[in-house]
């Protein structure tokens, strides 16, 4: 019998048919391939968080293969001579083994830590983007809340992870965590005793933090991230206003191939940057801190940056103790418990607060330029300023030391700054937004400044403006309506001059002959091309 030659095309088709017979995927798959995504650089910030989370999972699993979450005391006999013979916990010993006696172990530890820092940083920047552009508005409030929860979980993931190696710094962090629990009224001592399994530090905490750090928290994070992305997918991404763009459509490019490729390429680039940092920049050199000893602390013991704001708030809190008969409420309670609580619940409620204030029940799929909502920008800047002052105060001893300022002065500057700077930030950002708004309106009304000065017969000088729209019978521009998007303010944006040459000192490329992005179909005669470069 003659063997039939296998036709690859036919085999693939048959395979695809078989899959569709069983799972009916042809139509949904096509819809997925065709899905349109809007594009803008600021939409990539969340992606960085996602990619660093993947790196965290990968590197973290490697670490678990060597890490021993035990507080059993052992004597060190490993490769690092300075600590030989020292009594330490098995957790610290195994972290040292990871750093010195596992091939590439230090690289992996540093990769894990850098990825954690990047994870938190990108979440913060991503949140700022979402906030200032109003992307959290209906129907996306739930995703905003999930985002805040992701930051909170990341905070605890980072804190539990930082505690695991059981070195001098992590012990100090744990000690403060225990004191924060103790500061809770009524249940404080019970809570601390229950979490530490008796009096601080006990022998259980590393094991408990370990399971929280490698299973519980990453599990919840993974679930929330999936829901977060699922909702983005279902609700479709927001887009900036612009030509053709409405509240009812999505203007962009199809997911495959171009958009997906950009994502993949960006992931590799982020991964590469994390790898470079992990190799070149030392982080958390635990062998220098020694094992945790209750009696020892190195000065300038700083937590990771995303915990520093709390440390700062704790430092700035005046020593106000409240007594209720025989009971007392330590001042630690206010910054650490109430402060942290408020810092997470207020942002969560913000979408509803704003909608209520503006009496706004519509769904918004078009983003708002920050300047178009000055109040929101003001509130956001106020919160950011608060966060920054608190974070800087978390390092006030280092700053005092480096710049030879008195520590007490730093503390007082922080206390005053925390109260004064946020309202100032509010005021100035609102003013700046209003100014920008006004300038936009001016250009729309009078046209673009041409830089051409003309002398009138009466001797006065005026600058000639190029109207953006039609002119009336007297030659005056007909004022245009603001469309919520960039107003061209230079002649070369109108194609009247060559496009600006790219490059700082030298031109990067020859000035193009044609306008950079060919105008999409013009929508209405009155509107000028609005170029959004991506």
């Amino acid at each position, binding site marked *: 019998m003659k063997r039939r030659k296998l036709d690859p095309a036919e085999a693939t088709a048959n395979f695809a048919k078989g899959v569709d017979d069983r799972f009916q995927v042809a139509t949904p798959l*096509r819809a997925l391939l*065709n899905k*349109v995504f809007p594009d803008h650089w600021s939409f990539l910030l969340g992606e960085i968080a996602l990619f660093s989370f993947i790196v965290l999972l990968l590197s973290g699993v490697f670490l678990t293969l060597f890490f021993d979450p035990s507080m059993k*005391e052992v004597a060190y006999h490993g490769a690092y001579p300075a600590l030989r013979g020292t009594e330490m916990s098995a957790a610290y010993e195994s972290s040292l083994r990871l750093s010195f*006696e596992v*091939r*590439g172990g*230090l*690289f992996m530890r540093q990769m894990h830590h850098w990825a954690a820092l990047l994870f938190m940083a990108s979440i913060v920047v991503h949140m700022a983007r979402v906030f200032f552009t109003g992307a959290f508005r209906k129907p996306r409030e739930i995703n905003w809340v999930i985002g805040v929860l992701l930051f909170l979980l990341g905070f605890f993931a980072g804190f539990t992870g930082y505690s695991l190696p059981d070195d001098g710094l992590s012990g100090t962090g744990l000690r*403060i965590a225990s*004191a*924060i629990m*103790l*500061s*809770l009224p009524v249940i404080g001592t019970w809570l601390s*005793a*229950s979490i530490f*399994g*008796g*009096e601080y530090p006990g022998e259980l905490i590393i094991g408990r933090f370990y399971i929280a750090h490698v299973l519980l928290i990453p599990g919840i994070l993974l679930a929330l991230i999936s829901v977060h992305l699922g909702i983005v997918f279902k609700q*479709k991404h927001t887009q900036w206003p612009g030509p*053709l*763009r*409405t509240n*009812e*459509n*999505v203007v962009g*490019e*199809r997911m495959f*191939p*171009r*958009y997906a*490729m*950009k994502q993949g*390429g*960006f*992931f*590799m*680039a982020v*991964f*590469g*940057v994390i790898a*470079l940092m992990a190799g070149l920049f030392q982080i958390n050199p635990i062998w220098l801190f020694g094992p945790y*000893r*209750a*009696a020892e602390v190195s000065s300038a*013991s700083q937590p990771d940056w995303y915990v520093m704001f709390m*440390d700062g708030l704790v*430092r700035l809190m*005046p020593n*106000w103790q409240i007594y209720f008969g*025989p009971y007392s*409420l*330590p*001042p*630690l309670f206010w910054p650490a418990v109430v402060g942290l609580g408020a810092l997470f619940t207020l942002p969560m409620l913000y979408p509803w607060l704003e909608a209520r204030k503006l009496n706004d029940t519509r769904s918004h799929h078009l983003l708002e330029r920050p300047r178009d909502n000055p109040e929101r920008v003001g509130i956001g800047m106020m919160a950011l300023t608060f966060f920054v002052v608190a974070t800087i105060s978390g390092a006030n001893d280092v700053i005092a030391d480096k710049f030879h300022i008195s520590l007490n002065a730093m*503390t007082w500057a922080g206390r005053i700054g925390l109260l004064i700077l946020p309202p100032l930030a509010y005021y100035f950002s609102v003013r700046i937004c209003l100014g920008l708004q006004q300038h936009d309106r001016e250009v729309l009304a009078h046209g673009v400044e041409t830089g051409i000065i003309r002398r009138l017969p009466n001797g006065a000088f005026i600058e000639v403006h190029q109207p953006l729209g039609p002119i009336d019978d007297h030659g005056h521009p007909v004022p245009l309506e603001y469309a919520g998007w960039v107003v061209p303010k230079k002649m070369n944006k109108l194609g009247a001059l060559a496009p600006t040459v790219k490059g700082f000192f030298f031109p990067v490329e020859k000035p193009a002959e044609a306008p950079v992005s*060919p105008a999409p*179909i013009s929508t*209405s005669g009155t509107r000028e091309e609005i170029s959004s470069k991506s």
Partner: protein
Amino acid sequence: MTTVHHGETGAPVDVHDPKLTRFDIVKEGLRRDDIEIVTYESQFPGPNSKAEKRIVRNIAFLFIIAGLFSLAFLVFYIVWPWKFELGHTLSDYFTPILGITLGIALFALGIGILAWAKKLLPHELSIQQRHGDPSSDEERLITGQTMMFVADELGVQRRPLLKGAIALGLAPIGLAAAAPLVGGLIENPHKGEEPMMYRTGFDPVANGGKPVRLTRDDGSPIRPEDVSAGGQMTVYPGIPGGATNKYADSPTLLIHLRADDAEKTRTAADNDKNGRNKGSMWGNYVAYSKICTHAGCPASLYEQQTNRLLCPCHQSQFLITDNAQPVFGPATRRLPMLPLSVDDEGFFVATSDFKDTVGPDFWERP
């Protein structure tokens, strides 16, 4: 906003028509998904343009770089002497080499893919309708009624006995499930093994009733002449394991004050409002708990000129000559003083445990 209508994107086509190109079929799919391709144009003037070739070359170059550096990573990973050795050795460079090779490999790969997407693929502008409308009132009504019907079917409303039985009979099930999860964790902070909340290793009870010696972290006892005037030393309870984290509340700072400071300190201690510090000094020696009353860090930075003890964690400062009262920072409570004496053999002992509670403050502190 723009009101131009884009929903109309042409009539359906027969996808079996042999005259159709593949792109025509793709467009039919897009039409069915309510997507319109507005522009779709190559970035190059024609096929095989010079610009295109140049970009293809660059991308290929990036991919080759990625491959070469991956290989380099592997080679270094295998052959480089990586075991830690003291001093300046080749092993110091192992981690940086891994980072540079892997970093460049991944970064080049990423940029290559990005360039491919951005510079080679045609530019397109597509518009998809959102269809974000909520379900119609009719649909909502039907679903709502279906849910109510499910409740009807269960008939809880009609059967009050079941309602009561659910509330009374089944509610504890939830608690029963939660109890073992939570219950096992709960510890009573006021009971349990030594050392407890309000006691440290200096409590004579744990030492068979004998006063506990002050020792160094190696367990050796201390004579007064071991600490010179103006000097200080961290001391631990002289009991088994006294210097370990098991007695995390016990580390204490023993200070040998100069005569004039000692005088000030003694006056302050003897005039202590609640009398707890009275007579706790021994000669010119005073001992304070090292555990900060703020959040429990060791308050270990002793400033001789000002006689202040500074806690490095949140910069609380305690005045040694005044019962270690807090004078700056977030701490509210003084550092507890350890009553000192010297035993028959001439070693320091604590005549009793600390009389104030050691460590961070809490609600029911005695």
